[in-house]
């Protein structure tokens, strides 16, 4: 089976502190990704050190701002611009802010809650009692 993966849920206010600690411990930023939820977003900050994969996760509501981690990890600016352009999430204080011009999409924020209809989970079959 595959590598063990640690997913750590965090509050938005804890994010910068934990990211700074990971940086000090020598983790590299692997990626920042975002998932659309029914009423909000889930941001995944993935890190790696010596092939140990760690993922920090914060959940936010539509319209909620997220702090940039580009002051700690310089390479985060591309991911943060991507999340802004595709999901419409405002990321504050990005070191290099493209202000919505990184992605040229025909629909504004194509991955936002307004544009994504998530598939429904399959209904559980009712089992008849004796």
């Amino acid at each position, binding site marked *: 089976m*595959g590598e063990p*993966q640690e997913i750590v849920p965090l509050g938005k206010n804890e994010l910068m502190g934990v990211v700074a600690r990971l940086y000090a411990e020598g983790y590299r930023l692997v990626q920042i990704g975002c998932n659309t939820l029914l009423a909000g977003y889930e941001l995944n900050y993935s890190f790696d050190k010596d092939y140990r994969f760690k993922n920090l996760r914060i959940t936010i509501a539509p319209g909620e701002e997220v702090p940039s981690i580009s002051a700690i990890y310089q390479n985060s600016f591309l991911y943060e611009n991507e999340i802004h352009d595709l999901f419409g999430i405002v990321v504050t204080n990005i070191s290099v802010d493209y202000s919505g011009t990184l992605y040229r999409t025909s629909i504004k924020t194509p*991955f936002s809650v307004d544009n994504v209809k998530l*598939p429904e*989970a399959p209904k559980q079959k009712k089992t008849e009692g004796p």
Partner: protein
Amino acid sequence: MARKTIIPFGPQHPVLPEPIHFDLVMEDETVVDAIPSISYVHRGLERLIEKRDFVDFVHIADRICGLCSFMHSMGYCQAIEEIMGIEVPERALYLRTIWAELSRVHSHIFWLGAAADAFGFESLFMQSMRLREMVLDIFEATTGGRVILGVCKVGGVRRDIDSDALKGIVNRLAALKVNLEEISAVFINDYSIQHRLIGVGYISKEDAYALGCVGPMARASGLVMDMRSLGYAAYKYLDVEPMVESAGDCYARCLVRIREIFHSIDLVRQAAEKIPEGPFDLKVKGAPDGEYFSRIEQPRGEVIHYVKGNGSRFLQRFRVRVPTFSNIPAMIKALKGSGIADVPNIILTLDPCISCTER
């Protein structure tokens, strides 16, 4: 202080006929800043997951890129299999490894050709492309496709390669190796190539790590980082050795790729010798309920295929973080301080794949 001017590079450039653009901020002949611009042809493939059954979606993953086609479908399948707890038959894991390494060989030879073209070395470009055909012929013989292989599936692979065909592949690769030794000697020893590449586009080991470099770009700066060391597919049964150089310049990136071609040929030989008999696919029942970040080593470096499902046939999220996207910050760093004449070579030695980036 010299006056600053901006020179546009791309989105169409003779050296890199893929749409990426840089605004090069120049002081005289020196680049002082580079501002990248992508997404000229962004396809939004990730959202097609909402409209395709997760089993069929592998065909879309296959089409993210022509050079790493098989690697994308393999990464996607691996993520689904992890979520669903599918034990892929060992023979399928070996076959995946063989096709993955052949993909690396043809991608790197393609890069050698493109690099030779950028130096203005036309005959070397033609020789590289001629040799690449040998790998494409193997693809065609074993999968029916030369670019999009369409051979990976959730639970295994669609086609087997019999033992005679495997011996034939090893023999053809041995012949390829002899030819490659001849042209790689030119890449390594030619005065003009050394003159164009040595000391150009330098990235230190510390910068490579801090800027999130992956693949040959990271290894050329001295970082021992190769996702095959995770032991996915059949790599856990093979002797995988990351090819590392320390100079961090364009020449080191060229050397890493040349050494990786020979290593991949050896990995195919190892896999052909060790491949067990048995089934090569598995019938898949149910649908994925969970999430997984699949990490594999593409020709350009670590790629992430993230998959999230809720038990329905249609996934909630599919995301690909491609190596080129991860290498762009280092690309900017390498360009700063370089001469305008070196810009094409620097960008090319990072081997950007815009098709992957515009997934």
